[in-house]
């Protein structure tokens, strides 16, 4: 016979094993972010591996861009309109960063840095900037896209975020002639960021730490209520319900955290376009007068 007490212990064991695994997965995310943070230390001199702040003076890419983050997307027509307006939902297919090469001046002087072109690199563009560059220009553009989005193959597009103006560069810095050169560090590669990545990393690490604390604290609180005397009484039963609810919601919370702390080069862009106004259907032809 399986007593309530025995089954209660089993249920709490299941809850805690999963809680701790979800916390451990979050800790692995923190470890990955900390690895980035350790790499991104400012380079003080003329050589070394690290981060420098600079301003792009010449980029070999389109529009003078030093680098670009490109997200390939597929748009599909939404099942449901929003307030009678058509919608296209976008799914990400791939994301890749490309450094075209060029020059930038270091912000602590007039020293010019030549940046190597590289087929692939980390290019970090703010999510808001990337989303803005993928917004719909007009209803005419929307209507052309919608015609494809309704078909099985969908509406394919590429959203690009360019690195111009002020940037943060990570890589191997070396003196070269009167200036400096930046190439991919081994290990560490090459990073071109449109924002200071260090505060961004701090915020994401703090979020993940908060998640772990919250995950464990909530599991402890639910367990405590479930164990409230008399066991299996009203309060204890409410605690059991809270444990079940927590078990079911902690899992999507864990994957939401994983998505929230993805580095910008691998963060989901997705998004949707909504037509500014409903499509005006052509008026129906007037009924022919009924023959009498």
């Amino acid at each position, binding site marked *: 016979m399986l007593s309530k007490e025995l089954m209660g212990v089993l249920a709490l064991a299941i809850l805690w094993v999963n809680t701790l695994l979800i916390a451990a997965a979050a800790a692995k995310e923190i470890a990955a972010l900390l690895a980035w943070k350790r790499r991104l230390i400012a380079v003080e001199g003329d050589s070394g591996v690290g981060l420098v702040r600079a301003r792009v003076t010449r980029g070999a890419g389109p529009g003078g861009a030093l680098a670009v983050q490109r997200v390939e997307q597929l748009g599909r027509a939404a*099942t449901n309109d929003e307030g009678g307006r058509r919608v296209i939902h976008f799914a990400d297919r791939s994301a890749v960063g490309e450094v075209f090469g060029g020059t930038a001046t270091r912000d602590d002087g007039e020293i010019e840095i030549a940046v190597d072109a590289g087929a692939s690199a980390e290019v970090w563009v703010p999510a808001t900037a990337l989303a803005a560059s993928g917004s719909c220009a007009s209803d005419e553009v929307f209507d052309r896209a919608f015609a494809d989005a309704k078909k099985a193959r969908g509406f394919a597009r590429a959203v690009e975020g360019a690195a111009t103006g002020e940037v943060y560069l990570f890589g191997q810095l070396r003196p070269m002639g009167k200036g400096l050169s930046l190439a991919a560090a081994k290990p560490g590669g090459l990073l071109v960021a449109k924002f200071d990545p260090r505060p961004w990393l701090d915020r994401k690490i703090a979020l993940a730490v908060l998640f772990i604390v919250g995950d464990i604290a909530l599991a402890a609180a639910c367990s405590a209520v479930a164990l409230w005397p008399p066991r299996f009484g009203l309060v204890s039963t409410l605690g*059991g319900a809270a444990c079940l609810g927590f078990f079911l919601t902690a899992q*999507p919370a864990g994957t939401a955290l994983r998505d929230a702390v993805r580095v910008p080069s691998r963060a989901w862009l997705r998004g949707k376009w909504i037509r500014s106004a409903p499509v005006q259907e052509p008026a129906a032809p007037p009924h022919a007068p009924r023959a009498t």
Partner: protein
Amino acid sequence: MKHRAEWRQIGIVAVYLGLLGSMYLIPACRNVFFLAAACYFSFLNTVVIHNHLHQGIFKSRGLNLVWRVVLSFGALYPASANIPSHNLVHHHFDDDGQPDWAAPENVTFEWNLANLVHFPNVAGPNTFAGVQRWIAVNGRKDFARQYLYENVFAFGLTGILLLLDFWSALFFIVIPQLYGARCILRINLIQHDGCDTTSDWNHSRNFVGRAFNWIMCNNGFHTIHHNRAGMHWSELDAAHAREVVPRIDPSLDEPSMIGYLARTYLVNLWRPSRHDVAAAEARAAAADLASREDRRAEAEAASA
């Protein structure tokens, strides 16, 4: 019924629901034997979901939809989720360029047992988020309605049972339901970790024991199921011998799932290193197999 062999699946579900009902209603049935059997049959219930969502077992469309609702209660998730998550995405290891929602790479612990235990915590939310995105596009209103019915019935009936007798329902209904649901997610890790999902014949691990495949309705023959998704489950063993065996790395034909689990997750602490399993099919004669794109288009048409 379309096929005589489906009685086995009906029997599995009947036994499972009988076990749940017995434990909920009769205190004498709340023992280790009944609980272990209910957990195992809950897993088999999800195997029936898998088979039914590939090929409805009844000739009547209405009955097939009602059967999905019944199966959803057994697993505490809407059975129709299998159409996008399994039939369309998992079978082709691809979600419009992004990885399968249940790809083995979703877990990265060095301690391999932690990967096995944790896998549903990631694959489950990935799946349900993916299904929501899939429902949102291309006029899937009928699917959304059926998905809603299954959710309402599965969570509604479970909720009523919890309200009537919370602890009995939690311990003897919900735990078996979740065990089955989480095990069918884990199967994705078990059947594909260490395989080459880009290859045609070495993307999956098979479990070929006869008794195992009788009760599992031939779900151990996973390679041929991926490649010939329209084939009825009762024909998979013969097709495996005919088409897969000549092309598969022998390490992907496991005689026993229990042996594999013990060896991979208990005896060996760390995730096994990979080797080039796909080399086996390069040495074999080419097979008549449609491209993944064509097979996906076929599955998409079938789901519509």
